[in-house]
């Protein structure tokens, strides 16, 4: 994992001091609300319905046990004992008091953490595959490049007041787990001509009101040009992105209104001016960043050890947990373990201080002291010896962390919604809960198989509802909370955006609606076809018919 040197430490300390001064001036009435707003947002601080909400950056989802313990401390001392993993691989706290935030940030700085640019109209936390570095299908570890982008985008003086927020994702694997195509910029590690590794760069993807898949701007650029290429795109966007209408301000609208070819031409014109300039990466810098993400000290182990096979045979519960939560690892004898934070009755992504401490202990014991947060709000132990999987599972069970619904219907993505978010049209957490309750039979869930449900409380789409196999969006119907359903979304390589089923439903109708949709799928599926595959084959009509049949 990246280690700060004296420069990183110093700039972070300066940032904390700067924000302390800004907060003091604000509390002293020397800064107006509107002037303080972007300053606090660029330090992750929202003023929400109930209290401020602080979003802490977890660069590309990677956390050390030391950092987890610090987060547990913060949950205990500055919050009501819990935090919330977000769909952007960050963690949020819902209850800190404004005047405590500078102290809280100082605590975070001790463990090389911060809340810089986790909100506001600037370049946000760069995200990537939660399996990076351990995945079997990886061309190259994406994390060194995420770190390079993180440093370049942190305190970038030219791009702190963009038309709108700006999100970058990097993907180094064959199967895209980072939803790269629906980011403002999506960077893919690819092999170019002459077999050298470089990048393919898309721009203009995004969710929100007008969901779109990113368009290719750079078919291939060599590694050293990564930052100048990004800078060229950002410069065109900063100059030309719309600022007259908040809902049209994302880069996706600019790309669409300009046309991808014309947009590309503008980017190329900018790029020619700075290509090979000072920002051009050196081999030294690439190697330096790579040196922080070398393999941990793997032991010599063999795949599928005898002991594990025995345990799998003997314990059906372990077996079913294993089949859903354990993923192949590039290193012989090791495995990747996902822990689903989706217990019924607990908001998806919520984690208590005790659990955070406990995750830290488990990370130290089983996974070289690190965990990752996935954009599906789960926690990943990336480097676990297969021999120790049974132990780990038993430990997880003790803290109710062994739920095995990973990838299944009840492993939902859900934004904080109306319970916490000032922008919400409707609540989202109770919806997730009511669905979990309606599907509480694990055999049934396994039988249904892979099915993603994503829930957002409003058009801002923090719950990525457009790319859920089933998407649920909170809408406002004459002051009442309603939910619009879409089908067929996916954030995998062949990303697709869900299509709207029809008129919205009331909250209490949702579980029955989901049951009916699942019923239509089960009647129509062929062999082991997934929900998505069935939907893509049979289309919207059969679902629509069944759902709205009684209404006519």
């Amino acid at each position, binding site marked *: 994992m990246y280690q700060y*040197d004296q*420069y990183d430490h*110093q*700039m972070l300390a*300066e*940032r904390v001091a*700067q924000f302390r001064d*800004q907060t003091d001036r604000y509390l002293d009435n*020397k*800064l107006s609300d509107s*002037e303080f707003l*972007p*300053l606090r947002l660029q330090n992750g601080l929202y003023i929400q319905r109930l209290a401020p909400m602080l979003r802490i950056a977890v660069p590309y989802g990677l956390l050390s046990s030391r950092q987890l313990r610090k987060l547990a401390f913060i949950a205990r001392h500055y919050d009501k004992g819990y935090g919330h993993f977000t769909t952007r691989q960050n963690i949020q706290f819902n209850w800190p008091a404004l005047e405590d935030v500078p102290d809280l940030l100082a605590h975070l700085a001790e463990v090389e953490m911060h809340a810089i640019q986790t909100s506001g*109209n600037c370049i946000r936390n760069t995200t990537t595959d939660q399996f990076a570095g351990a995945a079997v299908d990886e061309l190259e570890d994406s994390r060194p490049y995420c770190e390079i982008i993180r*440093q*370049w985008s*942190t*305190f*970038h*003086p*030219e*791009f*702190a*007041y*963009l038309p709108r927020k700006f999100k970058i994702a990097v993907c180094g694997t064959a199967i895209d787990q980072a939803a790269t195509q629906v980011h403002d910029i999506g960077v893919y590690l690819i092999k170019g001509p002459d077999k050298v590794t470089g990048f393919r760069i898309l721009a203009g993807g995004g969710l929100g009101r007008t969901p779109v898949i990113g368009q290719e701007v750079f078919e291939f650029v060599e590694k050293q040009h990564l*930052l100048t290429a990004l800078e060229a795109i950002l*410069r065109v966007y*900063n*100059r030309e992105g719309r*600022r007259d209408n908040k809902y049209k301000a994302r880069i996706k609208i600019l790309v669409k209104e300009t046309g991808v070819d014309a947009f590309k031409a503008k980017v190329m014109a900018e790029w020619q*001016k*700075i290509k090979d*300039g*000072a*920002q051009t*990466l*050196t081999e*030294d*810098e690439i190697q*330096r960043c790579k040196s922080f993400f070398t393999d941990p000290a793997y032991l010599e182990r063999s795949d599928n050890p005898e002991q594990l096979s025995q345990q799998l045979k003997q314990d059906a519960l372990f077996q079913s947990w294993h089949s859903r939560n354990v993923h192949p690892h590039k290193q012989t004898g090791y495995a990747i373990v996902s822990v689903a934070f989706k217990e019924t009755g607990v908001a998806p992504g919520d984690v208590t201080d005790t659990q955070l401490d406990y995750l830290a202990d488990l990370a130290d014991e089983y996974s070289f002291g690190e965990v990752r947060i996935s954009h599906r709000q789960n926690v990943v132990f990336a480097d676990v010896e297969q021999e120790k999987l049974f132990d780990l599972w038993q430990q997880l069970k003790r803290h109710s962390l062994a739920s095995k619904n990973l990838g299944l219907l009840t492993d939902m993505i859900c934004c904080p919604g109306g319970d916490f978010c000032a922008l919400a049209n409707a609540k989202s957490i109770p919806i997730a809960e009511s669905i979990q309750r309606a599907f509480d039979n694990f055999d049934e869930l396994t039988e249904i198989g892979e099915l993603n449900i994503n829930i957002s409380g409003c058009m801002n789409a923090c719950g990525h509802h457009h790319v859920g196999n089933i998407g649920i969006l909170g809408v406002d119907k004459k002051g009442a909370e309603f939910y619009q359903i879409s089908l067929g979304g996916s954030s995998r390589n062949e990303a697709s955006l869900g299509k709207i089923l029809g008129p919205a439903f009331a909250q209490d109708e949702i579980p029955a609606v989901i049951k009916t949709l699942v019923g239509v799928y089960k009647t129509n599926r062929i062999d082991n076809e997934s929900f998505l595959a069935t939907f893509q084959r049979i289309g919207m009509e059969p679902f629509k018919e069944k759902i709205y049949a009684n209404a006519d």
Partner: protein
Amino acid sequence: MPTLIKNGSLEHDRWTVLKEATGPEVLRAVPNKRFIVPLKFWKDYGQELSDYQGEIAIWLDSHENVSELGDALQTFPLIALNFPVFSDGRSYTNARELRENLHYSGEIRAIGDVLRDQLFYMSRCGFNAFALRHDQDVELCLQAFTDFSTGYQSSIAEPLPLFKRR
């Protein structure tokens, strides 16, 4: 008159910004002055005013692109870039463009909604003069330039990115 910080210290401002102007007669009525005129005004009357007994500089609004200045660029002793509101970030790109690609070495002045908390980033993008909004605390503003001791990326203030210096 707004307070002016130039190259890190307070300075008496001898320039007058012409927000809007109907025609060249406005300038001729007061000879021997220094005016910062809008881009459009300069485009319309620049030629006519070439014999003006005084100095003329230019200001661009945030939606205007410095590339429109063409070859005339280097003749201006000062180019001002406007911030209609502090959260409009386009003038940062204009400033950077002026320094980095057009190699303009005269004064680049921030005008409009110029506040303490944006001064550091402005200075990194090539601004060296700041006409502060009237309500700003000058002492606090003078401290802004040391908010950070360095930055990660290549900027006008520090052309080499940190990775080439560390």
